[in-house]
């Protein structure tokens, strides 16, 4: 009985548990710091467990919908509602479930790391409150089936991320970065709300499924699409609106940076959800597909070229994050550009999208790992300037190994996971347009070059005298990095298992607009 109550309310619990834990965190922190740490970690483990069970149900039994306040959770269209889903609804399909798995897996590793790396700071009760709020916001963004609800979670994630970026408030620059991020994401959020207003004014609905059914591709719909794509492309840090990424990523504490990667991927998910599910074949998919492809290629090239001259290790990695986001946009953009043509979709469209979406997962893992290793180095030597590092391989052996795994994965070297997803992108994009595939490969080589340089200047060479007292970081930080590193290796060694079981259902959930509509509106 209890078990049934829990399983039928999983989508609500997914957001409720981190929210509840977040707001009780300052209270629990009054008892003792140890108590607070176990409270936060316990809440995170519970959230992760809920997400894994929910994802298992979604992958084995199909899309789960959860209607808040309805007599039964799956009653999406009540009889007295006039034929529209009037309540707020969570629609968790395979794509949402994949994003949830990514978010809680990285969140778990990052929180473990953070418990040790930030334990001597003040204001921790606020830090963990905001951290859990951010997790709740990301999970809400990827689960919701309601456009306005998506906006609310988008704003929660903006506010929480800005607060965490500015967390090291004693450095004025961190606040400057937080302010920049907040300004950009607030304006993006306002334009997103404008788009919601435009759609609501025309179709009298906020639910994505009913909007998708009614959408006409009028000039106003085009304006709404432009506003939403611009807002979400800004939030996921794609060129030409990437300028907040290096500042925000380099100034936030390392654990927060790894979470920011996940938060910007939730915006990326929103971008895909809106173009595939909300508009679908109604939009002129070739044009929009090419817009996303061009954004992707620009992000790849600009990101990597800006990364090469950087002197600050986290700034450098932030530019690489921009560049890697380009791969995801490229892969999924190619899928979108051939969306209406089933033959092309079967021949390479699905493969390209599998590559793009697999890259989201891989990127969250290896980029999270890289930011954590950068954080570990800064934690021990107190600077992020590459010119003042050197010879750390003698002192921090494990960190060096983890850094190597992460950087080989980001450069797309087999047998790590970056190779698996990039290879899918190369081979499918080559069939679409050889030039794009060549650009993608060149960017990958430049990425490798850049990380070889970083690896050399941080870990190689004789040990520097000023680093005499440097030792390996504490065990929880190593455990967190090891956790992510093992996942990077496993998903690199057995990519087929992940692609077959996780990625392919997600891609089909994303492209199958009729299936999404049927699940939500089917009972009507």
């Amino acid at each position, binding site marked *: 009985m209890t078990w049934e109550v829990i399983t039928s309310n999983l989508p609500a619990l997914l957001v409720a548990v981190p929210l509840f834990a977040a707001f009780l965190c300052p209270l629990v922190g009054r008892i003792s710091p140890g108590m607070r740490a176990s409270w936060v970690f316990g809440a995170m483990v519970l959230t992760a467990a809920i997400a894994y069970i929910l994802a298992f149900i979604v992958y084995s039994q199909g899309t789960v919908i959860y209607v808040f306040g309805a007599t039964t959770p799956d009653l999406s269209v009540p009889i007295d509602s006039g034929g529209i889903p009037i309540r707020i609804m969570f629609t968790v399909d395979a794509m949402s479930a994949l994003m949830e798995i990514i978010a809680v897996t990285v969140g778990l590793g990052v929180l473990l790391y953070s418990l040790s790396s930030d334990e001597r700071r003040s204001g921790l009760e606020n830090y963990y409150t905001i951290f859990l709020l951010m997790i709740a916001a990301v999970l809400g963004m990827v689960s919701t089936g309601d456009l*306005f609800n998506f906006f*609310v979670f988008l*704003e929660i994630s*903006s*506010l929480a991320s*800005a*607060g965490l970026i*500015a967390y090291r*408030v004693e450095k*004025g*620059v961190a*606040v*400057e*970065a*937080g*302010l*920049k991020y*907040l*300004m950009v994401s*607030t*304006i993006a*959020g*306002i334009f997103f*709300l*404008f788009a*919601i*207003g435009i759609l*609501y*004014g025309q179709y*009298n609905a*906020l639910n994505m499924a009913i909007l998708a059914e009614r959408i006409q591709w009028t000039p106003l719909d085009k304006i709404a699409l432009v506003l939403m794509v611009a807002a979400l492309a800004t939030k996921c840090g794609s060129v030409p609106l990437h300028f907040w990424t*290096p*500042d925000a990523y*380099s*100034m936030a504490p390392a654990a927060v940076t790894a979470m920011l990667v996940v938060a910007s991927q939730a915006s990326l998910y929103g971008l895909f959800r809106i173009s595939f599910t909300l508009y679908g074949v109604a939009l002129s998919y070739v044009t929009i597909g090419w817009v996303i492809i061009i954004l992707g290629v620009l992000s790849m090239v600009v990101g990597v070229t800006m990364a090469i001259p*950087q002197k600050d290790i986290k*700034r450098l990695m932030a530019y690489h994050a921009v560049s890697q986001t380009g791969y995801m946009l490229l892969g999924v953009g190619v899928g979108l550009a051939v969306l209406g043509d089933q033959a092309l979709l079967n021949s390479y469209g699905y493969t390209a999208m599998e590559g793009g979406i697999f890259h989201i997962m891989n990127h969250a893992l290896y980029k999270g790992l890289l930011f954590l290793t950068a954080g570990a180095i800064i934690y021990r030597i107190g600077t992020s300037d590459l010119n003042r590092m050197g010879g750390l391989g003698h002192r921090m052996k494990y960190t060096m190994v983890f850094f190597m795994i992460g950087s080989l994965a980001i450069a797309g070297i087999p047998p790590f996971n970056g190779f698996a997803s990039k290879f899918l992108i190369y081979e499918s994009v080559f069939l679409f347009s050889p030039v794009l595939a060549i650009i993608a490969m060149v960017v990958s080589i430049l990425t490798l070059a850049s990380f070889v340089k970083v690896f050399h200047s941080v870990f190689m060479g004789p040990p520097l005298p000023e680093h005499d007292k440097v030792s390996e970081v504490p065990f929880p930080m190593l455990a967190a990095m090891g956790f992510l590193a093992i996942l990077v290796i496993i998903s690199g060694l057995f990519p087929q298992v992940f692609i077959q079981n996780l990625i392919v259902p997600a891609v089909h959930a994303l492209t199958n607009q009729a299936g999404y509509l049927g699940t939500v509106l089917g009972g009507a």
Partner: protein
Amino acid sequence: MFWNLPYIAVVLLTIIGIATILLKKNLIKMFLGVSILTSAVNLFLIVLGYRDSGIAPIYTYAPSELMVLPTPQALCLTSIVIGVATSALMLSFAVVIYRYYGTVNVDEIRELKE
């Protein structure tokens, strides 16, 4: 024409808001621009939801079964709450920035270059 006036006001407010954010150098004035932009969206939502001589959906007092669906008002209320939270966070950032840089001029707050 007359019924379009609120929409024209929305457009004007949007333009004023964006121009303020882009042209002003003072952080506080930029925040004012963001607030104006938020107000433009809120006005837009309210105008969308306005029905001439509509009946407020208060069930005990409604004279007939036909009432206005209050969704746009609910959206607007949520957006106001979010706007308050954003303004509060932005202004507190401005306080900290003034303390460290001694200025709120965006041309001088430029330690994160490149």
